[in-house]
């Protein structure tokens, strides 16, 4: 058993506030996710996700507002399209798509945030450390 290192990109308007909600309610979740706040999930380019893996992350989370609720109207439409393709490309390179979590968390969904972090951490823990893949 190892402690996976996970990078979580959270959009400022929903998911980051969802994380705040979880914190304020003192919900417990594993400490494996290092959170990076971004203006919108649409900011997350595939390059950023890939670089995280390259730097040794075992998993990457991209969390944004629910479809229809993006602060910039359709920033997360782009997220949805490009992350769907990136997941396929990871598979085509022999990298498990389960290492990339794309989901939507609103400011009110503190509990969803906590469960998501817990389940994703467990999911990644089942896989080999990414550095082993890179060898």
């Amino acid at each position, binding site marked *: 058993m190892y402690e996976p290192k996970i990078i979580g990109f959270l959009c400022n308007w929903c998911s980051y506030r969802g994380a705040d909600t979880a914190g304020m309610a003192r919900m417990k979740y594993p400490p494996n996710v290092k959170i990076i706040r971004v203006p919108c999930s649409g900011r997350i380019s595939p390059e950023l996700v*890939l670089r995280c893996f390259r730097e040794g992350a075992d998993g990457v989370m991209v969390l944004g507002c629910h479809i229809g609720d993006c602060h910039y109207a359709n920033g997360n439409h782009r997220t949805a399209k490009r992350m769907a393709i990136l997941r396929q490309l990871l598979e085509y390179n022999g990298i498990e798509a389960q290492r990339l979590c794309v989901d939507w968390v609103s400011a009110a969904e503190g509990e969803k945030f906590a469960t998501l972090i817990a389940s994703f951490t467990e999911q990644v823990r089942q896989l080999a450390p990414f550095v082993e893949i890179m060898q």
Partner: protein
Amino acid sequence: MSERLTALRETIRQILPQVDGVIGLKTGPAGIVAPYLFKPGHPEMLDSLALWPKEPVPDTLKIIQKAYPNARLAIVCRGCEERGVVEMFKHAQVSLENLTLIGLQCVQEEALFCRCAKPYTVHARVTVGSPIAGVPDPLTEAFAAKSQAEKLAFWKEQFQHCIKCYGCRNICPQCFCNVCALEDEKWVETGRLPLPNPSLYHIIRAMHMTAKCVACRECEETCPAGIPLAIHFRLVARDVKEMFHYETGAVIEQKPPQLLTLEEGDYERSGLP
């Protein structure tokens, strides 16, 4: 093959007087085939008209149109090259105005060589040769059937030979950004070969070719390391078709899907929660 060549020569001869030039292939003095602009005053040049090996002629069209925006041109294009012209048009790289497409239909051995699913043109009103059905791509199929560990091993082995010559990017008619992510130090380190796994260079390129790659296989042909690069692009093209109902080069009016909003049903098909 030679029958098609004669027919093509005749077609160009007829079109020549109505245009400023026809882009096709010509065998040079040293026997090397390259793109060439046949001009109305010099029909004798058509004696050295060539069919094969194919070259990325959509790029030639772009270069000429850039220098002579009002030129009336015709271009000899195979299925893949027609798709290339259409996609370049959608991304404002070439103009379809004042342009006649001469559709050259590929023969079986060419299609097999390219492992091509669509060796025929669909838009050109002037055509040469008879269209044949697409052939399977055994390389891509064999890859798709591999286990995850085998896929990993496959690319590790292949990408080990990449010398990062940028040939695959440079030859690609659909790669035309002024600023290229593959030259950005943040993603691809200058002066170092791409690590085989994950190869950011190749995954980023494949990502950027989403809904753009027209399956012309120029990248594969040019690669000095002989890496079967089209595998990535063809698998993604399949996903794009399933998820976003988009096929490159098929419908001139259809917008490429990678930007803008999710259309009806896109999200449901994306496989995201």
